[in-house]
């Protein structure tokens, strides 16, 4: 129970402004001119010193994007985005890429320290057992500013670097896998990302290797009017295992900012990837002003037999979330899992869920989704479970629970189930409940105040999913949830 207490203490510390990551780092930046055209894409590609094939790939994606329509089927509403009013590239000004942390701008190091992400290895090592270490790739606006523990990881054969570096240093791996899970023209935002992606992480775990530490990327949008388009590619070769964490924050601004990422995961035979996200982009103020538009395509391909991909996400931020981390269960006997906690408050709108596409025989999937809506927010779970004709004996279990706090919010569940194989067994359970006045009164009669009572009940509601998160993330997530719900009662 200490975590709950800590949550409450933390909530109390934060008085007026609930969003503690809303500060801005003042630093000289280099930006591409505003707007989007082929020259901007050439500019980005040149900045990244990319080979010709990469530029061609981007331009092809851009041309496809121009022919596509922005999707409107999600249960979210927002004013039309002017894609020419956005900066597509912003990087801390320096003549050369930093070779070591000593060359990284101290302001940036301070920023990450403030966010609780120390980048100096010696600081991270203090008092931490090797198995609990976390290697971090820090992405600041459009560029990766530091990747830690590279040497130790290299000794194990694991490649962990920024995607820009991977394009230059490991072109054969990138070419082999990039766009094979989320094709360039998969959807509107994925095409946009393919054209203008600026940075993100690349992970390759060679056959039979269990990655010796957790890997993590910490995304920070700092610059005004700048979109963040990160691209992450993770490959677990045969029998490999890796656990990857992603965290995100942004300063508090009146304007909306766009974040359109693409994440691709590939597992070969007997491999496993665990991908966890704690998403805490700035959600906008109580009136719905500002906040990040989070339009993200995340997909994993269980390409090999008996491989496993697990998505775990805690979504508390963003003004609008449009995100469906999915699994293609291609390999026979492969398994996909999706555990999600989505918290919306204020004027936030979430349309999120997953897709489990069963292609191989004896494939299994599991979906546990917990949506919590408060304030005037709208929270939709949208999920697809499908079985291909060849997916004999595939199984899915889905459980979607929604919890409402107050009378002005909405929770919606939109499940799609398609089966073309008679031996497939799909189960779907869904509940919607409200924190009842009676429950609150009962807790308060025992001495908890109203906020404590809500925190306790919500923690009980999300417990199944929190248990799936890596330990230190679980504690962080628990705090986040309570902070997000501050002021949601009454």
């Amino acid at each position, binding site marked *: *129970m200490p975590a*709950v*207490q800590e949550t409450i203490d933390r909530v109390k510390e934060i008085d007026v402004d609930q969003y503690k990551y809303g500060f801005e780092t003042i630093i000289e930046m280099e930006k591409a001119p505003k707007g989007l055209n082929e020259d901007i894409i050439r500019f980005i590609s040149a900045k990244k010193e990319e080979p010709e094939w990469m530029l061609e790939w981007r331009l092809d994606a851009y041309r496809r994007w121009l022919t596509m329509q922005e999707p409107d089927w999600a249960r979210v509403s927002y004013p039309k985005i002017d894609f020419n009013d956005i900066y597509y590239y912003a990087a801390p000004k320096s003549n050369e890429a930093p070779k070591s942390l000593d060359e990284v701008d101290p302001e940036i190091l301070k920023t990450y320290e403030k966010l609780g992400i120390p980048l100096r290895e010696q600081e991270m090592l203090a008092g931490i057992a090797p198995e609990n270490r976390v290697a971090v790739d820090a992405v600041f606006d459009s560029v990766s500013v530091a990747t830690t523990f590279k040497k130790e990881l290299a000794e194990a054969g694991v490649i962990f670097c920024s995607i820009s570096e991977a394009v230059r240093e490991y072109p054969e791996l990138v070419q082999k896998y990039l766009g094979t899970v989320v094709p360039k023209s998969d959807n509107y935002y994925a095409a946009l990302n393919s054209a203008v992606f600026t940075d993100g992480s690349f992970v390759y775990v060679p056959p039979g290797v269990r990655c010796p530490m957790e890997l993590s990327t910490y995304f920070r949008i700092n610059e005004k009017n700048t979109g963040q388009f990160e691209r992450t590619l993770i490959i677990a070769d045969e029998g490999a295992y890796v656990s990857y964490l992603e965290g995100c924050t942004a300063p508090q601004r009146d304007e909306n900012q766009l974040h359109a990422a693409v994440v691709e995961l590939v597992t070969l035979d007997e491999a496993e990837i665990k991908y966890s996200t704690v998403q805490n982009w700035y959600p906008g103020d109580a009136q719905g002003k500002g906040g990040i538009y989070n339009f993200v395509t995340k997909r994993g391909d269980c390409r090999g037999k008996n491989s496993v991909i697990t998505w775990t996400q805690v979504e508390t931020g963003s003004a609008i979330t449009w995100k469906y981390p999915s699994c293609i269960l291609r390999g026979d006997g492969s398994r996909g899992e999706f555990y999600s906690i989505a918290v919306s408050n204020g004027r936030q709108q979430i349309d999120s869920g997953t897709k489990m596409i069963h292609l191989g025989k004896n494939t299994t999937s599991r979906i546990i989704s917990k949506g919590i809506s408060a304030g005037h927010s709208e929270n939709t779970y949208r999920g697809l479970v499908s079985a291909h004709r060849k997916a004999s004996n595939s199984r899915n279990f889905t459980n979607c629970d929604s919890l409402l706090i107050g009378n002005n919010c909405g929770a919606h569940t939109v499940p799609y189930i398609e089966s073309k194989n008679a031996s497939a067994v799909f189960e779907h359970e869904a509940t919607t409940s409200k924190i*009842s*006045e*009676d*429950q609150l*009164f*009962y*807790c*308060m*009669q*025992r*001495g*908890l*105040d*109203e906020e*404590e009572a809500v925190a*306790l*009940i919500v*923690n*009980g*509601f*999300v*417990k*199944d999913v929190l248990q799936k998160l890596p330990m230190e993330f679980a504690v962080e997530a628990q705090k986040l949830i309570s902070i997000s719900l501050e002021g949601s009662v009454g």
Partner: protein
Amino acid sequence: MLEIKNLVVEIEGTRILNGLDLTVNNGEIAAIMGPNGSGKSTLSYVVAGKEEYEVLDGEIILDGQNVLEMEPSERAAAGVFLAFQYPLEIPGVATMTFLKAALNAQRKSRGEAELTTPDFIKRVNAAAQQLEIPKDMLKRALNVGFSGGEKKRMEILQMALLEPRFCILDETDSGLDIDALRIAAEGVNALRSPDRSFLVITHYQRLLNYIVPDSVHVMAGGKIVKSGGKELALELEANGYADYKAQEAA
């Protein structure tokens, strides 16, 4: 000591309590009996501070403090405990977790240090043992899937742990078989002390064979219509509430 003076309460425009007076002294066990709909449960909710009741007049004073001005959690910290007639389920929250949160919230509110985990566990286990509550029940989500008897025993366990000054038992005997009733009553009797008082709400005299009251009050039409010693309960058991209902109608 709890003093209720001229309490007038409405819910959604319907008057439930109609000038109720009642004093319960330190160390006293007061029983309230009365027909259905006489306002017994309302009285317990109003003392504990449930929101939807509108107090139009009167006062509730606990040890000199005006309870009506306090939030439910503050009343709890000041020593008011209500054993619910229908205890609520809190899914996903282990009973142990709930107990610790409640105890520490009250201690904190009184400016006392939090209990250390070993001390806490020791206390819970001692109370659980007395109430014949198995340890694995403490690991389960609070009241979820508990039988009626288990829920009521859990209420008494919470009472024992939180050490309140003023305990209200709202029909704790309903839904209990004779063994469970005995265990719950023994739990309550073990908590009797010169500086703790009890308000025992019940329909039946049966409970009062186990928890022997110092005073018995008959409630009808939203007020106390008769008070007496423990023999009054026996009289009610023999004659029923007919006299009082007639009074109410008149």
